[in-house]
Structures are given as C-alpha cells and as structure tokens.
C-alpha cells in the first residue's frame, strides 16, 4: 500500500551534499550532479541522435537542476529527478526535430511481421547473436532503429530498457500511468525488433 508521506529517496552521500548545497555551499552542486553527466549526455544522444543536441540537453538539464535544486527535498531519487528534467528538455527540443514524425504505433502493424519469412530449425535465443558481446555495427543499427521511433515511444524505451528504470519510475518521470508506459514500451520493443529483423535473419543465415 502506498502512502503520501514524504520519503527521502536520496543516498546518504547525496543527502549530505544536498544539505551542504542548500545551506549555501555552491561547490557541492557539481559534486552532487556531475556523477550524472555521462548518463544524461548518453540519454540526450540517444533521444536526439547527434552530439550537438546532446550537449544542449546536458547543459539545459544541469542549468535547470541548479535552478531548482534549492527546492528539491529528495522525494525522488536524484537520478530520476534529473531524468525528469532531461526528458522535459528533450520533449521541448524535439518539437523542432526533423526526426521521426509523431505517430501512433498500432499493434496491428506488427501482426503480419515475419509472414513468408524463412523459419529457423532452432527457433529460440540460441540462434541469436549474443547481445552482450556484439560490436558497434549492431549498436549502430540499434541506434538507427531507436531514432526511427516516434519520440513518445523512444523516451519510454530509453528510460526503461536502456537506463534500466522500473516501469513505475518511468511513469513518475513522464507523468503517465504504469499501464500506459507498458503499452508504449511494448510497441517500441516490437518496432525495434522489427527494424533489426533483417539483420538478425542475415546473422542467423551466415
């Protein structure tokens, strides 16, 4: 059962740094926030698809964090709080993006996927390339597939499957319900799988 009582979700070290910052020690800000520079930069890179925009996302996220950290009480994990800011920055930024026009992904578009394609004798994960040891070629293909997702699906996939947040955390960050997150996530995964399927077929046949 959930309660509405405020809960401190910060790590002890983060709490100490936040207290120092809120008591006027400006230097504590960078110590507190800079560990998240790499995750936020990567999130921006995957959301936007290019380094310039990722740099903007990083800077805007941290500038906003600096602005609002004084009022932050630790009611969310610091990482999730930063991802919420970064998500908002990305969503605003992408209104001007030429990438992946906004559209709905319906389940029916995946129904006929694979019809007529060659079946494999061993149709289980053993025939699939080891996702953990693949090099940059597949990584590039994955990035392209992710870039092809409409942003409202892309952001859910990145937060849940790439960043490893729980569906509940993603729902809190994006101000959505958990079922809505799961529905978007499912469609996003189907889309990425479909985009990578030609590559998988080629790998399996070789």
């Amino acid at each position: 059962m959930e309660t509405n009582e405020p809960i401190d979700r910060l790590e002890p070290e983060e709490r100490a740094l936040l207290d120092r910052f809120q008591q006027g020690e400006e230097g504590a800000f960078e110590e507190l926030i800079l560990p998240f520079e790499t995750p936020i930069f990567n999130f921006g890179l995957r959301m936007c698809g290019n380094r310039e925009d990722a740099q903007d996302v990083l800077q805007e996220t941290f500038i906003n964090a600096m602005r609002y950290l004084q009022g932050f009480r630790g009611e969310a994990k610091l990482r999730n709080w930063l991802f919420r800011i970064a998500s908002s920055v990305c969503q605003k930024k992408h209104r001007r993006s030429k990438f992946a026009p906004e559209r709905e992904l319906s389940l029916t578009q995946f129904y006929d996927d694979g019809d007529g394609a060659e079946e494999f004798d061993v149709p289980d994960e053993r025939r699939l390339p080891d996702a953990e040891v693949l090099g940059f070629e597949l990584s590039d293909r994955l990035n392209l597939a992710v870039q092809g997702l409409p942003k409202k699906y892309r952001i859910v996939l990145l937060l849940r499957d790439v960043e490893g947040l729980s569906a509940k955390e993603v729902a809190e960050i994006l101000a959505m319900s958990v079922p809505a997150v799961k529905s978007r996530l499912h469609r996003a995964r189907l889309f990425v799988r479909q985009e990578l399927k030609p590559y998988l077929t080629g790998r399996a046949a070789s």
Partner: protein
Amino acid sequence: MSQQCRELLKRCSAYLEGDLDGACCEEMQKHMQTCSKCREMLAEMKWTIELCKSTPVAQVPHEVHDALRARLAAARSGH
C-alpha cells in the same frame, strides 16, 4: 497470423516481465509448443531487450565537459 499468434504478440512483453497470471502463461506456453514463429518472436523480443540493456555508453567528450563547466560557472555568477 492466427488469433492465438496475435494474442501472444500483444502480450509478449507482459509475459517476459512476469505481469501475466498463471493461466495466461500456461496458455502462451502451450501455444508456443506448436508454433515456431511465436517461439522465434518471443526469443527475438528477449534479445531486443537484452541488446538495449547492453548499449555501449559513450564517454562525454572533453570539450562537452568543459563547455558544461563553463556554462554552470556563468550561471552561478549570474551571466
């Protein structure tokens, strides 16, 4: 694609995340015993999720890091 295959496609994320009840899981498992396409589809979904989890992390370039520090310093000093 049969109705059962469509149902499996609709529910495969929920299945993989353990969100389905026992009866639903059994139904899906029973179907997959005889449907190689659905076994393949489920394996590919698992693989796709694993691939996302193992996406390489890019290092922040020095110039991006330096620009960030400069921007934060400027913001602190009110510029």
